[in-house]
């Protein structure tokens, strides 16, 4: 059975001129990059833009990645910085709820789509009330299903702190979503 190429191997192949190797890295870490960008920006469309920019920047600067085996951590730092820069430049301080016009445009969409959009907007609003680190960890754990070991390695915090943040984030989110808090 063929084994998945390691990050290190894919980085080396990209540096040797094989762009397809980088496409595998993009596919592998797209969701993690989106989760981190969303944790900071709060808007899925903005998160998508910033994650794309981060990958392009990572490609251009790949030769400076000193530890190719830790490509994921390196990439997520780029996503983090770019997200913060975007946040500062647009003065976004809060998560914006889904635009009413978008909902209106979808008025002919199936009811399930509308319910999903509504739930999404509620989740985004609740996530906006969490600390950025809690947002990121709950997204990585409950959307990406990453282990605490992996989250700790990617975010640079301890496994213990990852568990604590996740627990606090879930409690707070539950309270926000059920309306048992302010």
């Amino acid at each position: 059975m063929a084994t998945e190429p390691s990050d290190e191997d894919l980085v080396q192949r990209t540096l040797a001129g094989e762009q397809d190797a980088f496409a595998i890295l993009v596919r592998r870490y797209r969701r993690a990059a989106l989760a981190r960008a969303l944790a900071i920006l709060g808007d899925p469309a903005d998160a998508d833009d910033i994650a794309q920019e981060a990958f392009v920047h990572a490609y251009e600067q790949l030769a400076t990645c000193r530890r190719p085996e830790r490509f994921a951590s390196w990439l997520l730092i780029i996503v983090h910085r770019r997200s913060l820069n975007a946040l500062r430049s647009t003065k976004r301080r809060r998560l914006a709820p889904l635009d009413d016009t978008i909902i209106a445009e979808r008025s002919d969409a199936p009811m399930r789509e509308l319910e999903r959009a509504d739930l999404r907007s509620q989740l985004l609003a609740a996530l906006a009330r969490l600390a950025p680190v809690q947002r990121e960890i709950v997204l990585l754990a409950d959307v990406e299903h990453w282990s605490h070991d992996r989250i700790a390695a990617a975010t640079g915090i301890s496994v213990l702190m990852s568990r604590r943040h996740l627990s606090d984030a879930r409690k707070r989110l539950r309270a926000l979503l059920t309306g048992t808090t302010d």
Partner: protein
Amino acid sequence: MQDDPIDLTALDPDADPSAEDRFVGAVMARVAAKPNPYPMSADVLWGAWSVARPVLLAASIVIVIAGVVLTRESSAEPRGPLTVAESLGVPMEFRTLGAGERVR
């Protein structure tokens, strides 16, 4: 339970099945639009040469040393007779005569 995972599937970026391909395609299109900072080597054996270079160097040194040793050994070996006269033990003064001269 308080610590159970929260259902965040509404935030799943792959709710749209084509989202992954669209994202990867967009990134790679932007990458392709820029000058390639990592051009592929024109030498298809680029990787092989880098691995084989030390081996080839060591092999060439061994060949040179072996050549020198063999040359020395062959020059040190006793020389056999060059002519029939020499092999028969004809004294040297008779062997130096030219073909047209006869011993009277």
